[in-house]
């Protein structure tokens, strides 16, 4: 008996997914757990595996389609079965409308951080109840509706629409197309307003302004935009900055790396090495054990004080940024941290992180030192309570005793959610952190 296969929930926060590639084609026999397709979710590219055995009778949505959770993507059954009814009931596949997503709200159901459940601390705006509530299938008879343009994919528009868009200054990226395959057709432009353009700087400017290149939003870009806007608009940030004497940290790092190198095979490219960031991560973890009030999260019902130190490490990747989580950082050696962070970053760039590796952080560290940034302020990564923005180690004249001598300094700014971390708590945490980083021997042994 043939059945419709729906888009599954492949990450806890996923609301829709983009089929990056089908791995089976119509007519292929499939077994349980066979790889059907790869799906780009808001977090990563996930494998979409079969729960059924049979024949892939029909692919309802082509590569590149964006499909809401619970919408039909394929029909599986026995070879030769009549599936016309099912195809009809599946409606327009990806083009069918999805119910509005649940309104973003901090869930009252977030589990107590005391329980080390894998889903805890998941981004708070996703209700923790099971998926079906957010994934009710669209009415089976729904007519095909305008589909949003595929993120990262080419905007489909008729040549006439492209001409009109040029003439009227319309951006096609966010216009839903009602034509076949989501093609934007002339009537879809009815009532659309031009994108805002900078006023001509002077009367001397001649001719029309060059159009910007329009690039549709990727799933990741949408997630970044949504989460960080929400953070900056709803979380009352304040900022505390310290500038530490980095000479001891520099000396320690030199020493440690020399010693590590002496024990390693000189041809081993993966020989162990520690970075400033690895040392900072460990120091942050220790400081959080000393000032647990800084390892906290706000919810409307209660303040949550985490019983674990899981640090989200911001990693820049090709078209965005991702924050894999370093678990139990306080219990790991600097070398272990170095190894794990390197692995997480590599897999983040390859988009191969599992969703659970990107959630449940309790505190974030973002380091732009390698880009030559002296100091910056970061946006809090909800639902966490704070983020530490780390700058580069600067060579500069410093005062020692009554003398000015060459030295090293390093600035870091902590952004705090004032609803849960007050100024004094943040300052106490930074004092502990300074103490560790300026006397870094502790970092190695604690």
């Amino acid at each position, binding site marked *: 008996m043939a059945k419709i296969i729906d888009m599954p929930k492949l990450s806890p926060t996923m609301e829709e997914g983009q089929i990056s590639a089908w791995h089976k084609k119509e007519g292929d026999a499939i077994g349980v757990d066979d790889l059907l397709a790869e799906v780009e979710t808001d977090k990563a590219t996930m494998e979409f595996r079969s729960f059924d055995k049979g024949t892939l009778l029909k692919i309802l949505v082509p590569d590149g389609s964006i499909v809401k959770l619970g919408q039909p993507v394929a029909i599986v059954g026995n070879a030769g079965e009549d599936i016309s009814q099912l195809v009809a009931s599946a409606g327009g596949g990806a083009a069918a409308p999805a119910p509005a997503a649940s309104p973003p709200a901090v869930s009252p159901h977030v589990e107590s951080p005391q329980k080390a459940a894998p889903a805890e601390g998941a981004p708070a705006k996703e209700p923790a109840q099971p998926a079906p509530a957010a994934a009710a299938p669209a009415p089976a008879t729904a007519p095909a509706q305008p589909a949003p343009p595929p993120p990262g994919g080419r905007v489909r528009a*008729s*040549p*006439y*629409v*492209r*001409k009109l868009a040029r003439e009227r200054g319309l951006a096609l990226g966010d216009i839903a197309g*009602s*034509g076949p395959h989501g093609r934007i*057709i*002339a*009537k879809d432009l009815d009532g659309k307003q031009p994108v805002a353009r900078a006023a001509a700087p002077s009367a001397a400017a001649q001719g029309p302004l060059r159009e910007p290149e329009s690039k549709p939003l990727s799933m990741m870009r949408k997630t970044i935009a949504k989460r960080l806007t929400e953070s900056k608009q709803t979380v009352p940030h304040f900022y505390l900055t310290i500038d530490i004497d980095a000479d001891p940290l520099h000396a320690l790092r030199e020493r440690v790396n020399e010693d590590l190198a002496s024990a390693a095979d000189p041809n081993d490219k993966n020989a162990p090495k520690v970075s400033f960031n690895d040392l900072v991560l460990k120091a942050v973890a220790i400081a959080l054990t000393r000032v647990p009030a800084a390892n906290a999260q706000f919810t409307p019902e209660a303040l949550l004080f985490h019983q674990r130190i899981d640090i989200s490490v911001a990693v820049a990747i090709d078209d965005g940024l991702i924050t894999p989580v370093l678990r139990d950082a306080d219990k790991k050696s600097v070398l272990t941290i170095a190894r794990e962070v390197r692995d997480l970053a590599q897999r983040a760039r390859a988009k191969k992180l599992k969703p659970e590796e990107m959630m449940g952080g309790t505190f974030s560290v973002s380091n732009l030192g390698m880009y030559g940034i002296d100091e910056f302020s970061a946006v809090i990564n909800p639902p966490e309570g704070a983020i530490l923005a780390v700058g580069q180690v600067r060579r500069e004249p410093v005062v020692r005793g009554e003398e000015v001598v060459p030295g090293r300094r390093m600035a870091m700014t902590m952004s705090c959610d004032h609803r849960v971390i007050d100024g004094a708590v943040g300052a106490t945490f930074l004092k502990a952190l300074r103490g560790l980083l300026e006397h870094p021997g502790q970092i190695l042994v604690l």
Partner: protein
Amino acid sequence: MTAMKSVRFREAIRMGMVEEMERDDRVFIVGEEVGHYQGAYKVTEGMLDKFGPKRVIDAPITESGFTGISIGAAMVGLRPIVEYMTWNFSAVAFDQILNNAAKIRQMSGGQLHVPIVLRAPNASAKQVGSQHSHAMEHFYTHVPGLKVVAPSTCADAKGLIKSAIRDDDPVLYMESETLYNLKGDVPEDPEFLVPLGKANVVREGGDVTIISWSRLVHISLQAAEQLAKEGIDAEVIDVRSLRPLDEETLVASVTKTHRAVVAYEGWPYGGVGAEIVDRIQRLAFDDLDAPIERVTTLDYPMPYNAKLEQFVIPNVERIVGAAKRVAYRSA
């Protein structure tokens, strides 16, 4: 104001030929049954009496022979009109048309012209079977050196046959058996000419352009009426001249409507319709809101069975369907 006369399509062609034969005594007509029998479809009725057997010549059943002789006559200064019983039979004269009529001017370096008109009914009639229902314009428009016209109205029938006769190079003139009884007003002015290479907008509209010629223009106009009832305002263009093709009129219309359907008799593979689609997509690319659709004879030899024949030939329903699809109204 030009005096008009209401005539049938076959008479309009005859009027044009008679006027030109009166105007220029180099013009003569040759073909099977054009004289004593008064024409297989009575197009040449009365012409033998009027012009005598030297200018209205009954030919034996040898299309290749009388086409070749006529091409020779044209090369040395006469202006023959060759009537085939239908364009299907021109197939046996294809070598003469392809290799002599179309080539002499180029191969003689312009020393010789072939001012000949080849004319006959074309495409489907009523149950004449697969060998007698060919839309031959698709074969001949392929050839540089040939001009091909296909009128749909009585006035154009007269105006185009006159321009064809006056042209100094071969013109293939395609009629339709189903149009011979059509009645329409024709200007009596002997200098009324319809130029070669000019299309005609026969119905103005803003939503979709339906492009066709010959018999299908009338079917397209019916389709436009039907579309109007559904709120789609169709413009209908009678191409009239298939080679040379009036790109300007086609592009102007599509620039206005942004959607086009080409409806004609003939198989879907290649042909004049595909040529028109190519020109439009190339010249009006930025004005297209939908892929251009074609409504053609289905890709089969014409069935003899009357119902199947009507199924295979383009009809109002299929044109309406295509117009709705390009206008993104579900069809």
